[in-house]
């Protein structure tokens, strides 16, 4: 490609930094380069993901037989709380925006960096502070929180465990999330390259933009809510304490006003990545580009108004329950628009089913199951039966791990050549995808059946008739562990021994494929060409099966 050849002489961002120290750890942890910050996030987030996975394995091992197996009930409560806090606040909320958003948002809009590079670095430092606080509580007397990641009052006010640490951690992580959000909104508004209007932006940018707005609008609510619990625990002002006249249900409202939009912070960026990958590997513009772009904004907006569907059994008025149930059904529409448009994009496309594309196929399958079971939970009558059962656990893991988690892997495989300038072994990577699908279904599908049959969630013990399904699920957890190990090992191996990657290995047309792999410090040696439409493959007819 014309743009690729011009930059051979240039230095990549690995060789040229923004700090005084040229190498060593200081050139990373004090760097304001968005690409280095993205990689800092990648290392930290993957590390916490692995800790979260190990805890999950312990939970599944405990559940292999009824009664106490490896840990007691108290420890079990701490384990699932820690698993939730780590996976939600440290992995899946920052996951795609902080890693791939940081790395690719400026490149995809042709900018040199984000609008506030120093703020960007600060948000990583805040992230690490929050993470350290969450982990520290493990080693303190009293032990980590045992409240569940939802911190419901009154138990979170009464328990003797170190809830304040977990709350402070979540508060600080929220602050970090807000800073990333306002940085991205400003970047998209101010730093688009000349010629890139809003409707020429890649859909990944639309998704990140919508996500950033949710981060800005919703996160302060969880901030104040968690702060109020800290105040409650320290001073006993009574705002959520029923003995002093407070209302615990008010806490649930405030908590879910953030935490429901937060699930869209988790899934929206994943949806953006899906649009990119499907367009690239179908060699075709995304069907209904504008509708997919708007559906991101619609999800962000309507997603803000559905929070009380987590509280149908908490004593809502009938009117409120019906309204929230209706809104929940409405929020399914933009998600469905996306899924149908992705499938329509593939129609008559020239599909090249490489590894990232396979991950996306797994995503569409798992996310559809997760999304549809969400509607089962959103209906009032069925929710009364399924509320707080393993059905919810299964639904949540299908949309979050099967959705956002799968796309984290997809994005990793899609952008790996660009980020590190190396290619991975695609055969092993493909095997990883197949194994992922099989182990995922073995691990989580039995949970739908468990929940339907009445097994409550968060219990460390269960009735003997549930054992078969629990054993299948635990075996699935071991398979998942093997899969993740294989996938991560394959990528680490590629980092060290992989072939050199070309600038545009997949034949993509968004701007990141116009620069070298890995990109130079200020992203482009010469200003990239902005195409007339976001996914214009007409001039790439020469590249049919990747420009290897």
């Amino acid at each position, binding site marked *: 490609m014309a743009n690729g050849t011009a930059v051979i002489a240039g230095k990549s961002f690995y060789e040229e930094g923004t700090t005084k120290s040229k190498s060593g750890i200081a050139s990373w942890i004090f760097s304001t380069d968005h690409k280095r910050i993205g990689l800092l996030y990648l290392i930290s987030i993957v590390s916490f993901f692995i800790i979260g996975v190990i805890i999950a394995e312990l939970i599944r091992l405990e559940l292999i037989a009824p009664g106490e197996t490896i840990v007691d009930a108290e420890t079990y409560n701490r384990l699932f709380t820690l698993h939730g806090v780590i996976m939600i606040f440290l992995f899946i909320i920052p996951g795609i925006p902080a890693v791939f958003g940081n790395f690719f948002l400026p490149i995809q809009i042709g900018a040199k960096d984000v609008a506030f590079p120093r703020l960007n670095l600060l948000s990583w430092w805040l992230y690490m502070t929050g993470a350290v606080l969450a982990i520290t509580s493990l080693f303190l007397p009293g032990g980590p929180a045992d409240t569940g990641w939802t911190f419901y009052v009154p138990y979170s006010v009464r328990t003797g465990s170190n809830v304040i640490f977990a709350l402070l951690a979540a508060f600080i992580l929220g602050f970090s999330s807000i800073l990333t959000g306002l940085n991205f909104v400003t970047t998209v508004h101010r730093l688009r390259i000349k010629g890139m209007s809003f409707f020429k932006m890649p859909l990944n940018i639309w998704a990140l933009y919508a996500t950033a707005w949710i981060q800005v609008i919703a996160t302060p609510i969880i901030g*104040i809510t968690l702060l109020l619990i800290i105040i409650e625990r320290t001073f006993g*002002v009574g705002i959520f304490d029923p003995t002093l006249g407070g209302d615990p249900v008010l806490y649930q409202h*405030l908590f879910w006003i953030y935490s429901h939009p937060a699930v869209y912070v988790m899934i929206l960026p994943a949806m953006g990545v899906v649009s990119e990958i499907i367009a690239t590997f179908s060699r075709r513009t995304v069907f209904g580009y504008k509708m997919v772009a708007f559906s991101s904004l619609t999800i962000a907006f309507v997603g803000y108004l559905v929070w009380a569907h987590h509280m149908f059994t908490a004593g809502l008025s009938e009117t409120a329950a019906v309204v929230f149930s209706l809104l929940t059904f409405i929020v399914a529409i933009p998600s469905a628009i996306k899924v149908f448009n992705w499938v329509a994009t593939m129609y008559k496309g020239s599909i090249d089913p490489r590894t990232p594309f396979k991950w996306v196929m797994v995503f569409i399958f798992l996310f559809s199951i997760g999304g549809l079971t969400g509607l089962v939970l959103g209906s009032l009558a069925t929710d009364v039966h399924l509320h707080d059962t393993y059905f919810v656990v299964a639904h949540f893991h299908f949309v979050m791990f099967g959705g956002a988690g799968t796309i984290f892997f997809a994005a990793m495989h899609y952008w790996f050549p660009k980020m590190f300038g190396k290619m991975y072994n695609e055969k092993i990577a493909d095997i990883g995808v197949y194994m992922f699908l099989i182990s995922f279904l073995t691990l989580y599908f039995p949970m739908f059946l468990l929940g339907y049959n009445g097994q409550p969630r968060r219990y460390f013990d269960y009735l003997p008739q549930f054992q078969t399904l629990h054993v299948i699920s635990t075996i699935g957890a071991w398979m998942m562990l093997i899969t993740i190990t294989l996938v991560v090992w394959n990528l680490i191996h590629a980092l060290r021994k992989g072939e050199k990657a070309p600038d545009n290995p997949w034949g993509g047309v968004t701007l990141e494929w116009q620069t070298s792999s890995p990109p130079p410090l200020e992203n482009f040696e010469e200003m990239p060409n902005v195409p007339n439409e976001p996914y214009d493959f007409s001039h790439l007819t020469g590249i049919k099966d990747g420009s290897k």
Partner: protein
Amino acid sequence: MEANNISEHVTHRHRDDVGAKLGMWLFLFTELLLFGGMFLAYAVYRMKYPQQFHISAMEMNTTMGTLNTIILLTSSLTMVLSIAAMQKRNKFLSIIFLLSTLFLGTLFLINKYFEWSHEISKGIYPGSEVLLSKQNGEILYFGLYYAMTGLHGLHVIIGMIVLVFMLVFVINDNIKWDDYVKLENAGLYWHLVDIIWIFLFPLFYLIQ
């Protein structure tokens, strides 16, 4: 365009005042929502215990509250004047007005200190025996009073720390007549602190 790019590349300086202000407004928006959660709690409990909120509000010292309102409003004025002085290239006057803003902020905090200690001397503070012997609505009123004015006070302190930095920047010529977006953003933050007080004042002191 090309020449412009090269010079930017050499100096590595990127300046975007509009972007900086956009970022600041977004941040202020999150601050409003942060307090929004507390205002929501206030609204809920006022609806639930109107009578007891009435009794508690009678105990508030409206004079002190009014005085503090006047002080904060005046400090917003001096803040604006400081920026205006900077625009008119009058560095000295800008410093004087910044110092007055800091002085008024301190005055506000001193006032607040006396107000709180007056309540505490009456035995009214979270968890105290006097307060716990009262009705639920009154406990909540004072709980919210301490939480909301406390968080606001914390914001006043943060605002003053920011202003001290601005003062140093103005003295060092880091903020100049043709580059004062930092000062403007600090001003915006200070006005936010002011406007939140404008809402706290009637809710706790005036509505009885």
